[in-house]
């Protein structure tokens, strides 16, 4: 027996970055808001305190802040000739869990996408001819131009107090910033972090090769900062425990350190944790969602929360899964190319070159999640792709993220994995090893998609989401090319040994690669090829808005959170400025 609750103005499914931003904006507009979050509401002052938060085994290996695959996972197959198997342990990607979501345990690398990433298909068609784009490469223009989104990127950066150096202020190229980036209305809110020795050496080598190094834009506050919400962030301690950990210094921008303190005091906002949403209840005829059904994980009771406005802010898998399971829109069929939900699923093609500098003291344990020097010379279409046989690219960076020793134990190529020789090499190189990483784009491919698995079920009895995904030849060629540039820089740094690892072969769910999964509910201008319109409003239910990287039509060679935050503000503006005045489809289907 489902207990029906009193209707509220808006209900949000998922209380990570996008849910927190939207809750704040809707409350500001006077709406009553309920945020439903499957995981726990952890209190940072207690849950992320010293000394326990510096526990690599607990947080990095046993993944305490991540989603438990027993609660929700996906199945995987490389192509539709295979029978998918469940991802029983998370490895290559780590979905978040709890209030704050992945914003709790991210590194904080906060980029904007290039203006050309916002109009990818028309840009590449114009420069190389429409025929140069492979037939099965389903890249698309964003329905929102970079110029339209600039102010929203800036707003998210101000919320987080991003530390960085602008490269382009209103068209003026700035010394020391990224000369390839789109224009900015102003400088970053906080100055860049202090560089590591590895970063200094990387920048010098990159410059000597004619490239354009700049400091990684970081949501690790270089100095204490008060954001426009009046919330104070602390100064980063360079502890080397960002990714997979909470921040005890309140220096890493997260929902907890930027927005949740405001929401906690807001009488119009109620966050219910341990609330596992099972379904959106869809009135097909009226083209609207009437309510959301969820299970209270404390009691097992099923509840129904009616709302005038429904926001899906449950990350890539949750958003796509709930749309498919609730029967909203048409599931994408890779054979016919028809249908849209589950389309354009992408990942990221990451690789790197490990380098060993015998005579340099790198103190690799002094770091932050976004401490690095970067070049953007080989990202997106910042370089000529004529004759290369692929599109896309990635930034190349030397990050000093910390050197937690269970996972960070660099040894030169050819060293055994155990025994006397391994020990000697580990002791010798631990302080002298670094990695140059490539954050590579991933362009949508016809065969890569998400749908419902016919066999495996989750604890609520629903079919699991099924991922059909593999790397493409475009990805492998791109990775070989850009990883070669990383190796070139490593050699220019004077490394005695360089281990080059371009991405090749098939996608494997075991080794960690990135949690930058995207797509499944792509945005677009055509309801036949997209799930949401340019305001991130569902084409099939006018009171449903979908937030997060699930709306990307393809993935760029950048960490997605900057664009995700900007899009959340963009959608909030559309809801408050347009939708609430006349609740209906903002763009006719």
């Amino acid at each position, binding site marked *: 027996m489902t207990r029906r609750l009193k209707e509220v103005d808006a209900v949000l499914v998922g209380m990570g970055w996008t849910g927190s931003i939207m809750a704040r904006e809707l409350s500001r507009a006077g709406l009553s808001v309920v945020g439903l979050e499957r995981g726990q509401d952890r209190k940072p002052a207690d849950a992320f305190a010293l000394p326990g938060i510096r526990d690599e085994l607990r947080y990095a290996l046993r993944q305490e802040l991540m989603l438990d695959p027993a609660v929700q996972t996906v199945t995987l197959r490389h192509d539709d000739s295979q029978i998918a198997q469940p991802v029983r342990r998370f490895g290559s990607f780590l979905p978040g869990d709890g209030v704050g979501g992945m914003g709790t345990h991210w590194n904080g690398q906060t980029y904007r996408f290039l203006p050309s990433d916002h109009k990818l298909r028309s840009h590449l068609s114009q420069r190389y001819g429409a025929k140069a784009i492979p037939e099965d490469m389903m890249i698309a223009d964003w329905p929102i131009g970079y110029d339209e989104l600039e102010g929203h990127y800036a707003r998210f950066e101000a919320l987080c107090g991003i530390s960085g150096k602008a490269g382009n202020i209103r068209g003026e190229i700035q010394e020391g910033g990224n000369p390839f980036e789109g224009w900015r209305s102003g400088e970053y809110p906080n100055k860049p972090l202090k560089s590591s020795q590895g970063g200094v050496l990387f920048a010098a080598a990159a410059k000597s090769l004619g490239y354009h190094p700049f400091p990684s834009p970081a949501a690790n506050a270089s100095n204490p900062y008060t954001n426009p919400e009046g919330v104070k962030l602390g100064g980063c301690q*360079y502890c080397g425990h960002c990714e997979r950990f909470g921040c005890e210094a309140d220096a890493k921008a997260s929902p907890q350190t930027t927005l949740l303190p405001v929401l906690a005091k807001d009488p119009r906002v109620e966050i219910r944790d341990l609330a596992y949403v099972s379904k959106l209840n869809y009135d097909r005829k009226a083209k609207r969602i009437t309510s959301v059904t969820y299970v209270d994980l404390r009691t097992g009771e099923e509840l129904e929360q009616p709302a005038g406005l429904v926001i899906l802010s449950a990350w890539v898998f949750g958003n796509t899964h709930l749309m498919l399971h609730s029967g909203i829109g048409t599931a994408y069929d890779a054979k016919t190319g028809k249908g849209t939900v589950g389309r354009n699923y992408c990942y990221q093609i990451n690789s790197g070159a490990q380098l060993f500098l015998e005579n340099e003291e790198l103190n690799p344990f002094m770091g932050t999640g976004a401490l690095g020097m970067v070049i953007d010379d080989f990202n997106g279409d910042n370089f000529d792709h004529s004759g290369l046989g692929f599109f896309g690219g990635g930034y190349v960076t030397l990050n000093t993220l910390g050197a937690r020793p269970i996972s960070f134990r660099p040894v030169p190529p050819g060293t055994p994995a155990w025994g006397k020789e391994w020990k000697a090499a580990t002791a010798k190189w631990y302080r002298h090893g670094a990695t140059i990483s490539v954050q590579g784009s991933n362009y949508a491919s016809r065969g890569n998609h998400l749908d419902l698995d016919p066999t495996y079920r989750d604890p609520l009895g629903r079919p699991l989401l099924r991922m059909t995904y593999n790397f493409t030849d475009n990805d492998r060629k791109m990775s070989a090319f850009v990883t070669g540039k990383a190796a070139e820089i490593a050699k220019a740094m004077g490394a005695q040994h360089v281990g080059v690892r371009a991405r090749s072969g098939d996608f494997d769910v075991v080794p960690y690669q990135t949690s930058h999964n995207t797509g499944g509910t792509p945005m677009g201008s055509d309801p036949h090829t997209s799930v949401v319109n340019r305001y991130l409003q569902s084409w099939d239910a006018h009171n449903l808005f979908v937030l997060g990287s699930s709306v990307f039509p393809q993935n760029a060679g950048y960490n997605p959170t900057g664009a995700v935050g900007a899009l959340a503000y963009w959608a909030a503006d559309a809801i408050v400025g347009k939708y609430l005045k006349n609740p209906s489809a903002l763009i006719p289907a």
Partner: protein
Amino acid sequence: MSDAIQRRQFLIGAGGATLAAAVPPAAPAAETPLLSAPSQPAAPQQAAGDSFQILSAAEAAFLGAVADTMIPADGLSPSGSDCGVVVYIDRQLAGAYGAGSRIYTAGPFQPPQRGTGWQSPLPPLGFFRAGIAAADHWCVATYGHSLDHLDEAGRIVALKAMEKGEASFQGIASKLFFVELLQLVMEGFFSDPIYGGNRDKASWRMVGYPGLPATYREKIEAWRGKRYEQDPQSIADFS
């Protein structure tokens, strides 16, 4: 050699150098840590004989032989078992990890396809139990002795065969077993000592990892390009 250490070697199998001789001298503290912590490293925690929560004597002996072959005693650190690696594995397998926490366990089951990772119907405790039994059976059939009764050269040959997947175990892939085993051994060697391994922070001393509190805001520039050293501190030192 004390009775206690002889008993340990009986239990764990492959003995090595005694701890005191192998610990490198503690590096001087570069600066006073922010949080209060003892200025002297704690005395080695190795006690007279390890006790196990869930491992049988034969399982502990096998794992001791593995730990001491993967992490042999030398001037850089004591042996794996002297660093507590077997105790670490015992505690992990006896707890939530061994019971299959954070694993999707619903069927049906099939052997893993390329790229899908862990597909065992067994939780880690059952998997390691079956793996150890298969490995010992294979060692006896191949070399005439269980792993812990082989000499060091023999143990290296046996582990290399498992690493390459050339050891034909009954019912379990030796390569998969080896990968999981190597991971647990390295976790036991490098994790915070609160889990029972990495006694006296031996691995952190070996590589020069300072541990806690890791507050380097005022140090990253001051020590840039210079070797920063600190007597390593663990969670227990601040608790």
